[in-house]
């Protein structure tokens, strides 16, 4: 690229500018500004402001290796500056139009202060413009670094940013083992210190460079030629080590993080269940939260020592809760499972909403407590030992997840998994080879319901109470987002997805308000860019990127009759 592609620069710059503008006026920048990353230097809000400018510069510079430096840098500079223009206009507008806040509630003086670095509007705006143009320039300049240095550099930068963003994690771990004073040195009240950031960056860069120059290619080759036996042995070692790690995890993490992981585990359990329904059998269930609710309510009603409860032992109540969820799944499933694809999605959504309304209604209030819910849910115990702390529940949930993971894994590789796959690919043919459609779907539905019921039973006990609020449609959407982001049909993907979508927001409390916005964006972006998810199952990858390969395909040989019956998801 020896001349500047003006059109592209303007296009990218303005798109980034609109992104920055929207992030600002919906209040994201301001909310995220409360999260310090590097104390006194960078907040998450600023990162949100600056990242688009940097990315804009990076993206207009393109991938051509033989480019002239000057036009490249100029393009980056311009794109970065353009990304700043809409917010600069916003600052100016807010200066003239003092009542703007009556219309756009989040265009607050604090926001303007962030945007102008606390200066008065003209010099502040100019500074913002300059910073963002500079970042665009930097983004473009990245391309001028030789590739072997560039990759470690980018990785180290990313690592430093992620470390500082999630500094709560290392902070909590460090608190378990080190003295307070030592910890303070690296982690001030929020974020990490500048010195710590520099040190971490330097260390990360050193490691990345060492990795890059010490024969990366050779290692990759070794990886490729590894024998199946060795691979099996390696994966066994990985499994044993990670299991050992999971067992001692609460000791390492401390109470706060253990609670987070327990929350993630609850969602892993649910997502494993929904994964059987959506991922294996291809049935989109949007009312999944209903089974979670059944498991939680039944267990709570049986164990609660309050007015509504029976005071039954948890270990008896939990299986009953799971069985109730399974039965509920079967009773609901029978009528709806003859429907196909999107109709099924809407009917299950309808059922979920019916449950939500019923749970709150006066009709069922005498039984399940209406909006007040059920209090004093019973806790599991072994003899005189009772489960109380997050750590205790961590082990309970871990056991549940392991069980669910094992069941899902064995079913997938067995006859049931094959039936599900066949039904997902072509219902008519599956039925014609002798598979009972309703029975097969019902099995998926029932097992999925059982996992959710188990998750609900443990959840109610862990939280100590059960309210209608815990069973909103949002939970269904949350679980759906987990399996889509993780990889539909992929077991490790589900676990990863739960950590990303549940664990990270738990760590970043500022996310709460924008959680669903981000889920929405994620659902769209994943479907557009990476429909197979972050950690796809092997089959899924082939299935979803089919159009990109040139291999002879069944689809190409088929008439229009078959086109109507595509694999789901």
């Amino acid at each position: 690229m020896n001349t500047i592609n003006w059109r592209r620069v303007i296009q990218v710059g303005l798109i980034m500018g609109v992104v920055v503008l929207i992030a600002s006026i919906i209040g994201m920048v301001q909310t995220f500004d409360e999260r310090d990353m590097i104390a006194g230097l960078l907040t998450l809000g600023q990162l949100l402001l600056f990242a688009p400018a940097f990315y804009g510069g990076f993206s207009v510079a393109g991938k051509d290796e033989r480019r002239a430096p000057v036009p490249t840098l100029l393009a980056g500079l311009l794109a970065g500056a353009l990304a700043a223009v809409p917010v600069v206009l916003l600052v100016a507008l807010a200066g003239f139009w003092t009542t703007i806040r009556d219309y756009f509630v989040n265009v607050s003086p604090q926001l303007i202060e962030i945007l102008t670095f606390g200066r008065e509007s003209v010099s502040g705006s100019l500074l913002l413009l300059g910073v963002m143009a500079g970042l665009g320039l930097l983004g473009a300049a990245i391309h001028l670094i030789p590739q072997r240095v560039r990759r470690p550099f980018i990785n180290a930068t990313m690592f430093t940013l992620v470390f500082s963003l999630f500094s709560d994690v290392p902070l909590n771990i460090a608190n378990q083992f080190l003295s307070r004073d030592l910890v303070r040195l690296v982690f001030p009240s929020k974020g990490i210190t500048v010195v710590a950031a520099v040190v971490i960056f330097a260390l990360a860069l050193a490691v990345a460079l060492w990795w890059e120059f010490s024969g990366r290619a050779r290692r990759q080759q070794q990886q490729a030629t590894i024998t199946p036996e060795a691979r099996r042995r390696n994966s066994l070692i990985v499994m044993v080590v990670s299991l050992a790690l999971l067992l001692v995890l609460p000791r390492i993490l401390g109470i706060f993080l253990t609670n987070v992981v327990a929350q993630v585990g609850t969602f892993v359990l649910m997502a494993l269940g929904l994964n059987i329904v959506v991922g294996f059998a291809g049935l989109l269930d949007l009312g999944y939260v209903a089974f979670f609710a059944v498991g939680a309510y039944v267990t709570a009603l049986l164990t609660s020592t309050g007015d509504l409860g029976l005071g039954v032992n948890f270990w008896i109540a939990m299986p009953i809760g799971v069985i109730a969820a399974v039965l509920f799944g079967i009773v609901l499933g029978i009528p709806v499972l003859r429907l196909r694809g999107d109709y099924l999605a809407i009917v299950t959504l309808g059922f979920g909403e019916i449950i939500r309304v019923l749970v709150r209604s006066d009709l069922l209030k005498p039984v399940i407590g209406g909006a007040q819910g059920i209090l004093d849910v019973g806790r599991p115990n072994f003899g005189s030992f009772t489960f109380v702390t997050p750590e205790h529940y961590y082990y309970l949930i871990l056991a549940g997840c392991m069980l669910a993971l094992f069941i899902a894994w064995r079913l997938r590789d067995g006859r049931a998994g094959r039936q599900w796959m066949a039904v997902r690919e072509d219902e008519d043919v599956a039925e014609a080879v002798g598979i009972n459609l309703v029975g097969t779907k019902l099995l998926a539905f029932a097992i999925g319901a059982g996992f959710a019921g188990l998750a609900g039973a443990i959840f109610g006990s862990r939280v100590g109470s059960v309210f209608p609020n815990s069973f909103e449609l949002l939970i269904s959407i949350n679980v759906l987002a987990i399996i889509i982001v993780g990889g539909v049909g992929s077991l490790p993907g589900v676990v990863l997805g739960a950590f990303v979508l549940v664990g990270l927001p738990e760590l970043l409390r500022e996310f709460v308000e924008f959680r669903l916005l981000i889920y929405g964006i994620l659902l769209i972006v994943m479907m557009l860019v990476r429909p197979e998810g972050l950690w796809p199952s092997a089959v899924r990858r082939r299935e979803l990127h089919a159009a990109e390969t040139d291999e002879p395909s069944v689809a190409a040989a088929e008439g229009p009759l078959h086109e109507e019956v595509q694999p789901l998801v």
Partner: protein
Amino acid sequence: MANILEATNVTKRFGGLVAVNRLDFAIPEGGIVSIIGPNGAGKTTFFNCITGFYQIDDGDIVFNGTSLKGRSPDKITRLGIARTYQNIRLFAYMSAIENILAGMEPRLNSPWFGPVLGLPGTRAEEEKAVEEARQLLRFVGLRGKGDSLARNLPYGDQRRLEIARALAGNPRLLLLDEPTAGMNPRETAETTEFIRNLRDEIGITILLIEHDMRVVMGISEDITVLDYGEKIAQGTPVEIQGNPRVIEAYLGRGAAGAAHLTVESVEEPA
């Protein structure tokens, strides 16, 4: 020989359109029987009626002493009827061997929770099924291709895999819907021979829909001709070739005198 399948007075309507009209039809056990007719004559619709994909509006179909009326496709398949499709319909993203294993469904009995509990019976059944699936792959000439995805196989292999999937359930009656469509003459000849072998070696009764007259005339023992959902002729290949109504249906009124329905196909061994 007893009839394995008897259809009496079968009628299927779609709104005002009568796709199959009061059809009487029988297949003798161990026979190779064909249905031919112009496009839209109701051949595939009749297949769909037998396999339970469509519910018939009138009449009855009896297979091996059991009425098929009102049964769902999976139950009919479990009675011993398997089919292939005009446009190949494999499970495109499952491997060849998984496709065959899916076809074995009518014979598998292990419970779904077998793999979870590690039941020995389940494992034994699964191992036996995989072994048999490998044999079937070899039988249809797909040795060593078991792990490729069905969609990545060449066209001819896909056709053969579909037949293998249909055979996997040990059917007594096999319905083949245009098994040689889209094949070149050499492949067509091979497939014809293959179908004949199926009957001769395994003893499966075969019902065939086919457009290629070489195939039809070459292997059928009995041919039924459909037009607008009605049976217009039935008989041996020689009888059908000489039937003026058949020629009329294919070539239109007036052409009957001049036409000769690929007589050379009978002389030339397929």
